């Protein structure tokens, strides 16, 4: 998790990217969500050593980044930031799997390294697609898409609410952390007892805030149920988007496209 102060900025920045006037923005958020989920299933279904046949799937996030005018470096930074966990688990593959499966003359690659690379490629693909989802649709649209796809209403409402209040709470928390930093002598993490009273105070203020919010909702006519009234219309282009990409993913899964391409080129040369 990033530092307290930078969190809000990065969340807002990711959401704001969706405000860019791009072709992707006119797509129904449901199509982007569904296609991304199909993509993730396709990526994760590749076997341990299928490094080369996996590669064509790179086109999907690359196209989305290009069409959505998303700064590729921002996404890359985030991918790098969360990669340590995957690297830590994946790096055991070369340790345990030392059977040579690829040979270039005298240059031999053990299976473990191939499967490690596969893990990292899969990681980059799945992570980028998750981030791109908010960057191209906006968080509210993603929530609306979830609601229209029959996710329980109360959970979608919870998502939208919590998103709104994260900005408030993280702001308060970062002020507390900053105040502490200014008064402590170069300590980067907080003493346990101080932390408990800070968090305890924050919690009490949170509970009070919840009561005030509830009072405000009641005085505006809240009767217990929140209704989402925005409509979503899926057009022809949405169907083409979803079906087109899905067919592509399935083809990549079934056929080893790089090998076919390579054979074509080699056949053409000889």
């Amino acid at each position, binding site marked *: 998790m990033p530092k307290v102060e930078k969190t809000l900025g990065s969340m807002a920045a990711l959401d704001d990217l969706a405000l860019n006037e791009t072709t992707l923005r006119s797509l129904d958020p449901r199509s982007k969500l569904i296609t991304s989920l199909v993509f993730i299933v396709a990526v994760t279904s590749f076997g341990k050593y299928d490094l080369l046949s996996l590669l064509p799937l790179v086109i999907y996030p690359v196209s989305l980044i290009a069409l959505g005018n998303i700064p590729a470096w921002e996404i890359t930074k985030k991918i790098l930031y969360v990669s340590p966990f995957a690297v830590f688990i*994946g790096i055991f593959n070369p340790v345990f799997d030392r059977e040579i499966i690829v040979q270039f003359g005298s240059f031999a690659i053990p299976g473990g390294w191939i499967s490690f690379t596969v893990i990292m490629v899969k990681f980059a693909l799945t992570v980028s697609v998750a981030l791109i989802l908010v960057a191209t649709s906006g968080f509210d649209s993603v929530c609306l898409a979830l609601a229209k796809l029959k996710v329980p209403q109360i959970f979608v409402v919870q998502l939208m609410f919590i998103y709104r209040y994260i900005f408030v709470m993280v702001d308060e928390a970062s002020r507390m952390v900053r105040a502490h930093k200014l008064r402590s002598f170069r300590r980067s993490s*907080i003493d346990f007892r101080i932390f408990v009273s800070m968090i305890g105070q*924050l919690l009490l203020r949170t509970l009070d805030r919840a009561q005030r919010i509830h009072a405000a909702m009641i005085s505006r006519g809240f009767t217990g149920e929140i209704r989402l009234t925005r409509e979503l219309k899926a057009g022809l282009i949405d169907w083409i988007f979803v079906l087109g990409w899905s067919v592509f993913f399935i083809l990549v899964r079934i056929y080893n496209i790089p090998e076919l391409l390579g054979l074509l080129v080699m056949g053409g040369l000889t």
Partner: protein
Amino acid sequence: MHMADALLSPAVGGTMWAVTAGLTIYSARKVKQDLDERKVPLMAVLGAFVFAAQMINFTIPATGSSGHLGGGMILAILLGPHAAFLTMASILTIQSLFFADGGLLALGCNIFNMGFFPCFIAYPFIYKKIIGNNPTNARIGTAATLAGVIALQLGAFFVVLETISSGISELPFSTFVLLMQPIHLAIGIVEGIVTAAVVTFVWKARPEILEMTEKHLAGEFSMKNVLAGLVIIAVLTGGMLSWFASAYPDGLEWAMFRTAGSEELADSGYKAHSALAGIQEKTAFMPDYTFKDNPSAIAEVAVDEESWPAVNTGTSTAGIIGGALTLLLAGLIGFALKWIGRNREISAGA
């Protein structure tokens, strides 16, 4: 403890998603039945609180290393299990969508590992049982610590199970477990102590808050329901995941094969052994985990042993050339799309 998509197979991810979806629908229904409409803003604000609190690092006393709050237990204590589960789920969803902290396919696993165990197991069966009717400092401390430890141990264990059954990481079960469980034991203790400290703080400052939340918890938690739920989970995971069970020898059989030349001990000649073996043969209705005397099944297994995971790497020279070409093409497509987009912007702006 957030799992990444890259280490998960679609089967495991899908199964856990099914389980989590079921739990979410169940919790949503229960929260709706709860007549306390104050819960709606409370869930959101407490969720945001936990999200914010997770970002503040504190020094763990006596070790000098730093930790941060998990939050599942505090949410369960303040909101009740169903609302807390939904809140945990929303926190994890936001972490996944904005920070890629856990993948979208893995979200089902993560919500289960970090939401189900604190809210539906540790809270009702450990915390509440120890607290009883009158919380004291000592009771809160023990209850929260024990609940935290158990919730995290179970969660960490399921991370191991989900990773191993996906078959993508080469980490053997024993190594992985020995890595995960001790670390999460420490994390669990810290989580429990922090939860206890914060709950005690709140209880001392505003005792009525804990009483208020206690009263609104919808009835007794039924052990029967939880057991039924666990049975369903076991059947789902066992049934679906067994399709992907490896036909290769397990660790013990492999070690046996290397040392003795066969995967099972030959008959030792002792009468007791053969007698017991005879009994076992008669009573085992699923020898070797398949049904008895099913010649087609045996033949299938033999064939499968050769084709599962058929290591067809496709790494011929053609493949590598093609791979490089594919990446080049992907990059070109990306640049082309960007160029087209920019041109369209310019002409639209002019």
